[in-house]
């Protein structure tokens, strides 16, 4: 595994607001990382700092380059896809292909055209005439035809319906991810990406509150479904969050032995979304 991203003390402020607050981050190649956080958590600012799109303090290298000074060179090996609204609406599809062909040394136009041939996106069509879903398909066609080592997606499926969202992530995983590339996905739709993630990062108020491989979540976090009198005893054990379920509580613990919890109810591995809510849940936190 190669170290793709390394950041130390990364900070970015807007006036009094610390959008990214002293973040240390290490990401290795060959992983699919979910960057998850509430609105205003600093996800977009963090991604932009990694891409050299915003000034920041601290040290940051992406594939050995400082994005603040070598962004153009870096973007030969990094792809970035923001939400659906960023494709230039005045362009025609073939003009977008012409442009990327002209400026990107790692772009394979034939591959992009082959991908588009499987969709309803015609080459002569104007981008402003495409639906949101088709615009994303066009953007995905461009991205997938670039031989990049790092793909950063910032809310790529925002505003899309469920069918397009599912297709998008399927294509991303089946046609793009090869086990060596690295994909960072910032999204609100945690449930839709949790099955493809190898690592998850939770972010809140500009800080990273969790960075963990998906496989180790099972070892470190347990969800106890306690009902009846067991609820009170379960709540007395230090936990990271809880929520109400039918007749009781679902309580998430970190680093607590299964043998201690097993007598109190059913044990499961918490979903990423439940874990996220538990970790950033504020008032629900305990211990």
């Amino acid at each position, binding site marked *: 595994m190669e170290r793709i991203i390394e950041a130390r003390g990364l900070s970015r402020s807007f006036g009094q607001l610390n959008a990214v607050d002293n973040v240390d981050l290490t990401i290795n190649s060959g992983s699919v990382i979910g960057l998850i956080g509430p609105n205003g958590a600093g996800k977009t600012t963090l991604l932009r700092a990694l891409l050299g*799109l915003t000034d920041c303090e601290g040290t940051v290298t992406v594939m050995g380059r400082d994005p603040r000074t070598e*962004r153009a060179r870096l*973007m030969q090996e990094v792809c970035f896809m923001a939400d659906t609204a*960023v494709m230039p609406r005045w362009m025609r599809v073939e003009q977008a292909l012409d*442009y990327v062909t002209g*400026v*990107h*040394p790692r772009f394979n136009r034939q591959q992009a055209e082959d991908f588009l041939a499987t969709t309803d996106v015609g080459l002569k069509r104007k981008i402003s005439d495409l639906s949101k879903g088709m615009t994303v398909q066009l953007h995905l066609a461009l991205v997938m035809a670039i031989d990049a080592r790092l793909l950063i997606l910032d809310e790529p499926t925002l505003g899309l319906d469920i069918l397009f969202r599912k297709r998008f992530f399927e294509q991303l995983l089946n046609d793009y991810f090869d086990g060596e590339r690295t994909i960072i996905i910032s999204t609100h739709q945690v449930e839709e990406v949790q099955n493809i993630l190898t690592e998850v990062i939770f972010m809140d108020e500009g800080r990273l509150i969790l960075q963990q491989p998906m496989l180790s979540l099972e070892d470190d976090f347990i969800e106890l479904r306690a009902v009846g009198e067991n609820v009170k005893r379960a709540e007395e054990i230090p936990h990271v969050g809880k929520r109400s379920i039918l007749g009781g509580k679902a309580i998430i613990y970190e680093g607590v032995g299964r043998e201690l919890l097993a007598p109190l109810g059913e044990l499961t591995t918490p979903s990423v979304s439940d874990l996220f809510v538990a970790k950033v849940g504020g008032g629900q936190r305990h211990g």
Partner: protein
Amino acid sequence: MGESAPSRFFAMVQRELQEYKTSLVITPIVTAVLLTLVMVVSVLLAGRISAMGDAIMQVLLLEDSASGMNISIQIDEDSANGDEYSYTIESNGSVSEEDWNFSREWTFNPRTRDKAQVEDAIDDQVDTLNPMLSVLHYIMVFVLIMVSINYLLGTLFEDRKDRSFLFWRSMPVSEWEEVSSKLLVALLVAPVIFIALSMVMQLAYVLLSMLLVWRMELDPGRLILGNIEFSRLLFDQLSGWVLSALLIAPFYAWLMLASAGAKRSPAFFAVALPIGLILLEEFFLGTEMLRSAIANHVPHATETSSVAFYVAGPNWAGVNYLSLVLGLVTTVILLWGAVYCRRYRWEI
């Protein structure tokens, strides 16, 4: 694959021409077509007059120094014995309407001069047609500058407004490449389009003039082509733009900085800030250095001339070279500012 610099540059320029197709491509074509139509209509009207008799044109063109027209009226009225009648028109006499017989055929035969005489006279009067052709060029360059101002104010603002900035930023193109390519479009690519069309239009004008002269049965080669210095015209118009471009560069760079830095209205930013600074300088320092510096680089008309606007040809001897060099240094600084805004202050 876009590995070579020319390929990258071509792709970037092509993108500008596609995005600003209306301003940079359609507008000059429409302007040229409209001006050509005006010329065609003029020639047709002139041709109509010519159809009434070439002599009218000759009279209009030549007879200003002559003593007057000699109008003779031929009345085709046969007398019984074949004698010729003689009629006299008296200027002071009052003739009752009943005495006029309009059924007679009236012809207009001004005194004619021979063809060589006419051509000599025209040749003497027309020194060169270059200034006339330059008028067309002036119009095209005026439209070019208006279009360029509009282009530069929008080019680094519109993509931030519609967020397509993030798509462009996802490509391996540096901010310097992007900003300099846009400046080059304004200083070189757009002018090439406008000047090329201007020349085509001037050629059309020449051809139409030749046609008109030919219909008058005069020698178009001598009267039109002989009075146009083509090489001089081409050199003056091209080199005139080169000097204009060097002088106008800081003005254009300022517009780009306004476009890159403005949160709402680049035009307001571009106008309000200099005016504010000029007023502050005049109020607190009592000097007009900034006003003078700006005046040296912004095309504008004065009562007697136009400034930084060498359309019909450069005047290298009259150039303030210190101002020119300072302007170019300012251009680099302003472009650096635009690049900085593009890199770190792009969010609206």
